[in-house]
């Protein structure tokens, strides 16, 4: 079985600024891969390119055997129309830093919306599936609540439920704990750990080094728009090979305990 996600030589420019300068990486089925790196290294942009929230100029992104976001036109890439992009996005789940829950519907409906309108499940079945995912993330008693009634940590857990209930092949996490108060971070990380143990394929951008060390199978360090180093967490975090990674980790001195 080939890798679930394959990124080949991805280049992305914002105007004259090249943010991704030839990124290549793979994620295998069931693997949990963390992306670390300084702000501006392109991590968030990379995630947004994968689920077609951003366009890119060169390179290819494959989900299984499917080319994402574009159609091959001899050697050139042609952007797919919006309706096809929507269908592709259904197979890639994304959890955002600012939750992005829909404020005008209940938590249950937030999770069920995609199931009804994209996966075309009947309303009752969708709500049942949604309720069971909400239970899984520990919010069974909040199904009728509106997002504004929940804490940040609770809202983020709903956002995770919303993404994973769609049954995607790949889950993307974009610094999902960065906007949370410190005491709420733990509940979100334990949900993510639970998902990792159940075998979900996850690509996580995070600063939470504890999580990286405990849960990730592989760590990728991005710097200046390229993959600078990658490897198992223990090796990467304790025996960095490149100078850039050493400098980056130097900022976290003391966080890992014995570094």
């Amino acid at each position: 079985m080939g890798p679930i996600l394959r990124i080949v030589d991805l280049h992305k420019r914002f105007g004259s600024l090249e943010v991704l300068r030839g990124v290549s990486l793979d994620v295998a089925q069931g693997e949990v891969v963390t992306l670390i790196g300084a702000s501006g290294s392109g991590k968030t942009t990379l995630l947004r390119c994968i689920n077609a929230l951003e366009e890119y100029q060169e390179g290819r992104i494959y989900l299984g055997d499917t080319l994402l976001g574009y159609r091959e036109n001899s050697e050139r890439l042609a952007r797919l129309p919006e309706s096809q992009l929507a269908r592709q996005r259904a197979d890639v789940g994304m959890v955002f830093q600012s939750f992005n829950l829909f404020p005008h519907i209940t938590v249950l409906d937030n999770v069920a919306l995609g199931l009804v309108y994209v996966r075309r499940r009947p309303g009752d079945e969708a709500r049942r599936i949604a309720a069971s995912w909400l239970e899984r993330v520990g919010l069974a008693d909040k199904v009728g609540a509106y997002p504004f009634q929940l804490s940040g940590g609770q809202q983020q857990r709903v956002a995770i439920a919303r993404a994973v209930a769609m049954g995607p092949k790949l889950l993307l996490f974009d610094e999902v704990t960065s906007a949370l108060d410190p005491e709420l971070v733990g509940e979100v990380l334990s949900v993510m750990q639970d998902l990792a143990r159940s075998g979900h394929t996850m690509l996580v951008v995070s600063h939470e080094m504890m999580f990286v060390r405990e849960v990730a199978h592989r760590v990728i360090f991005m710097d200046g728009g390229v993959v600078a180093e990658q490897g198992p967490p223990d090796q990467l975090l304790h025996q960095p090979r490149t100078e850039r990674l050493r400098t980056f980790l130097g900022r976290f001195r003391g966080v890992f305990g014995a570094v």
Partner: protein
Amino acid sequence: MAQAILLGLVQLLRGLRTTLEISAVVLVAGTVLGLVTGLALEYGNLVVRLLARAYVDTVRGIPVLVLIFACYFGLPVFGLKLSSFQAGITALSVFAAAHIAEIVRGGISSIPRAQTDGAMAIGLGFWQRLRLVILPLAIRRMLPPWVNAAVEIVKGSALLSLLGVVELLLAMQNVVGYTFIVLPFYALTALLYFAVNFTISRTAALLERRFAYLRY
């Protein structure tokens, strides 16, 4: 004398009914056209956006009276034989739509990109996003200015009196003309306009409070 006054009151009420009819038709037509134009302004390609912009800016840049006269006198030249009522309603609808288009555009563009991202991320297509997420959220933002537009429409209906349409203002003028009772009927007419518009605004305030729980 008393008979004349009674007759006058009846005529005023008939005029009021015409005013309400005009306002209702213009509000509906203007909202539909305004919604389409607003979507065009926000999501259209360059040509569509430019055309919509030209329409909205031109119509909003001239007095509504000029638009009314232009429609009334000008449209027959192009072969469109309309009654004063129809010409007046057309002009007012075109005017209202231009204002409502701006309201719609403003409402939609005020929805944070995060909401669009979230809707895209779960695989909703463009029209689904619009129907399920963007418009429901935007409508709550658009309600106050839309209600203001409704009040302006009711006030604008008074201008149709200049085309001979017997709505409330012209009815008042007729009644004053043959009863020679001026101030009381002026006062009553003002009161009627006030009552209609005040009711519209109050209803809207109630609706707004109902949706006030939304915070994003």
